[in-house]
């Protein structure tokens, strides 16, 4: 395996990188390939946050003075932008949370908990992230319900056709990720939602690894709930969102109680206010919402089809290059399609060592179980090495990884 190995050149000069100050200015030598963990921020997102604090900052939904009205308008406009971004029918259906993780927990505690009965089932998949696995495991064990798992086929795709009872009566909810953060595969969400719809079973889709990387339309998917995070789509940390069909949201209780969610309170009772406010207890994350919307606008300007095409090309080239190395095992095999994420193992080199050596060579990849222990247990692995691509990556980043692989082989292999 010579260090001469380079990927085919689908993308030699990236025109978006200049928008990202950390990558373009601060760390121009860095090859950042850990985008499934978190993405960097374009200047327009940073500027939007700065403006939020220095131009239109104030309390939301309460103040009667112009600055408070402006802040409230900016917050609600951010909601509109994000609702539109994922194709929601109305901005009422978009709830701001602190993260995708909170969004999922809100559905588990607020929607599933009150309606789950002993003997009911919730179905998840073998490839779920802990954030979309543990909340369901806990709620099932609390309510005497069954947590069932759709297993995977050899090629890493869901074996949902042989998941016995998936669409049967006791199933109260089906939960799955749109894109796996380990295998990189995309699940046939639309088909599953259609089947579930017929059977009257709601579906929650974890969109954390899909939104921002490809066009997403929740009405086309026809899912009941959809969750995603700002920081994984070039937006700020500390903000995420839950989309829910209005009928589902009407059935849901809030996870957090506090200021801003009630109509009437007396010593013994309270009545809830309207949707979506009732799910957003506490002072809203104004700057987070504005930065989140700025990220959506940044992506809309480029066009998500363009984003998707560009990253897919690079990803295919990377997959080709890696699959030429006889000491590399791809997970799943090379013939399965991925978008932005590639997991692999190098013979004789522990993923930790690989990530460390790559890191010192200026290549940021991830090693470990990627918060997917149920999957790792099944694969019989401790962990994998993972590269994950973003808008700003180009051939040089993948080449640098290939070089780092060689270094690791020389050093440790």
């Amino acid at each position, binding site marked *: 395996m010579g260090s001469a190995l380079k990927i085919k050149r689908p993308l030699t000069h990236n025109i978006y990188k200049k928008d990202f100050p950390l990558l373009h200015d601060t760390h121009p030598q860095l090859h950042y390939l850990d985008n499934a963990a978190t993405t960097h921020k374009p200047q327009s997102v940073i500027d939007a946050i700065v403006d939020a604090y220095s131009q239109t900052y104030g309390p939301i939904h309460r103040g009667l003075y112009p600055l408070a009205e402006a802040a409230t308008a900016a917050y609600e406009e951010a909601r509109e932008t994000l609702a539109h971004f994922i194709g929601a029918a109305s901005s009422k259906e978009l709830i701001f949370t602190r993260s995708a993780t909170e969004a999922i927990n809100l559905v588990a505690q607020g929607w599933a908990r009150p309606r789950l009965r002993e003997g009911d089932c919730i179905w998840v998949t073998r490839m779920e992230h802990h954030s979309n696995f543990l909340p369901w495991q806990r709620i099932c064990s609390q309510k005497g319900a069954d947590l069932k798992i759709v297993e995977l086929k050899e090629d890493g795709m869901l074996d949902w056709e042989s998941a016995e009872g998936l669409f049967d009566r006791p199933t109260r909810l089906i939960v799955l990720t749109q894109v796996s953060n380990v295998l990189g595969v995309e699940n046939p969400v639309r088909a599953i939602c259609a089947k579930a719809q017929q059977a009257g079973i709601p579906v929650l889709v974890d969109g954390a690894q899909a939104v921002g990387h490809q066009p997403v339309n929740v009405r086309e998917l026809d899912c009941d709930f959809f969750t995603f995070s700002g920081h994984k789509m070039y937006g700020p940390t500390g903000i995420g969102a839950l989309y829910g069909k209005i009928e589902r949201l009407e059935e849901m209780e809030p996870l957090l109680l506090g200021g801003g969610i009630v109509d009437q309170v007396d010593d013994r009772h309270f009545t809830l206010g309207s949707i979506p406010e009732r799910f957003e207890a506490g002072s809203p994350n104004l700057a987070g919402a504005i930065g989140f919307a700025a990220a959506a606008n940044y992506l809309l300007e480029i066009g998500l089809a363009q984003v998707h095409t560009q990253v897919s090309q690079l990803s295919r080239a990377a997959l080709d290059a890696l699959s030429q190395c006889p000491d590399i095992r791809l997970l799943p095999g090379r013939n399965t399609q991925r978008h932005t994420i590639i997991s692999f193992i190098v013979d004789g080199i*522990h993923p930790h060592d690989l990530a460390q050596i790559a890191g010192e*060579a200026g290549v940021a990849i991830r090693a470990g179980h990627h918060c997917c222990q149920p999957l790792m247990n099944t694969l019989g692995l401790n962990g994998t090495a993972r590269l994950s691509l973003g808008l700003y990556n180009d051939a040089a980043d993948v080449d640098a990884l290939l070089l780092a692989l060689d270094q690791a082989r020389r*050093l440790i292999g």
Partner: protein
Amino acid sequence: MTTHQLYKDVLLDHYRHPRNKGNLDGARVVGRGSNPRCGDEIEVGLFSHGNMLDRVQFRGRGCSICIAAASMMSEALSGRSKTEAAQLSVVMHRWFGNGNGAKVEPTPPALEALSAVREYPARRKCVMLCWEALSEALFALDQTLRPL
């Protein structure tokens, strides 16, 4: 090209040729340590009589740091007393423990090569896996030695 401080020769030598790695049959006690973040796992066996650790041996799977640290530990402790082992364990926990790693204390020369790892918080756990296994083993040893 960056210098690979962390993988300097001593560590790599221990990783490639681990000392005292292998069978734990006949060990007086065995302790386990595992790192759920990566699935790594080390078992440490103490071959002792009374308070003396004649031999410290280990087995398991792990990254280079994890294996090298276990190998170095086994060298540093074989032939020492239980008390010395416990003391060293405290020093190592201070050195590599979460958040308290600020103060550097004198360490036996045999372990000095590990100091490179202190710069990498995410890998401290890799070093400490064998020491956690040791703590468990020492505790078990105490139980066997305690008069009934």
